[in-house]
């Protein structure tokens, strides 16, 4: 299956076309903690991540809580 280009946390990246957000998280090792996912400025809830298929040029941000004041 052909690869597609997306942006993950600001970095260009290729993944297999048809991959879901959930698959991207697994590939990225981001499936073992609570993360927030934003695709093209839209929040993607945990329950939507399996169904949400990524498309060419999607802007994906995966966010966690770090130390802050």
């Amino acid at each position, binding site marked *: 299956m052909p690869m597609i280009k997306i942006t993950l946390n600001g970095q260009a990246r290729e993944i297999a076309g048809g991959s879901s957000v959930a698959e991207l998280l697994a590939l990225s090792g981001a499936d073992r903690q609570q993360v927030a996912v934003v695709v093209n400025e839209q*929040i993607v809830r945990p329950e939507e991540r399996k169904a949400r298929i990524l498309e060419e040029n999607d802007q994906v941000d995966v966010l966690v*809580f770090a130390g802050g004041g």
Partner: protein
Amino acid sequence: MDPLQLGTYSFSSRLLLGTGKFGSARAMLDAVRSSGTQLVTVALRRFNREQAEDDLFGPLSEIGGITLMPNTSGAATAKEAVRAAHISRELSGSPFIKVEIHPNPHHLMPDPIETYEACRILASEGFLVMPYIPADPVLAKRLEDVGCTSVMPLGSAIGSGQGLSTAAMVSIIIRESGIPVIVDAGLRSPSEACAAMEMGCEAVLVNSAVAVARDPAAMAAAFARAVEAGRQARTAGIMPKSGTAVATSPLTSFLGSAT
């Protein structure tokens, strides 16, 4: 001590703790525990599998009794702050949001115009909005009017440790405010936190002073004690200043009787 009331939430601790700048997640967690804090700030960051320790959500949840207050650090406009708040709520499940909009990395001072706009929107969306603001009495009152849960005027520049340099303005804010006033940023030592409480702040938010102490956990405990002391003093009635001396001992002259 009387609890701190923020929206529908009630906290027995009046010390809010930030989680940045600690030497390690372990040091931060030890400080959180020994401080007895119940409301802790965190910041959004992009996930990085090489820095899994960055992720504080899990460890903080394990402590128990901790409510998260994500901040909007990094936002330079109201629009960005609102977006950060939405993402943060998604992740934290907490209604608290610390609105923090500081466009200038040299002094990290808050932008009153953008902050006001962001707070207006987020309060209307039901967030418990806690803005980090300049010590500006009218801005504070207007933020109360648009539904903020608290206002958090700065004592001095973030991380500068220059203490409560804005005391004169903060005391005006306290006098006029109908919502809790919490000093945020710049406090260097427990005595300054204690003084803020004596002035009538409902709580203080501390981060750098604990994070960069030689012994963060001990410093966190010291701040906790000082905050309690200041609150207790406030309610016990602090003496007025006097221009002159007032003797505490009898000045009986019997000693001179035979000289």
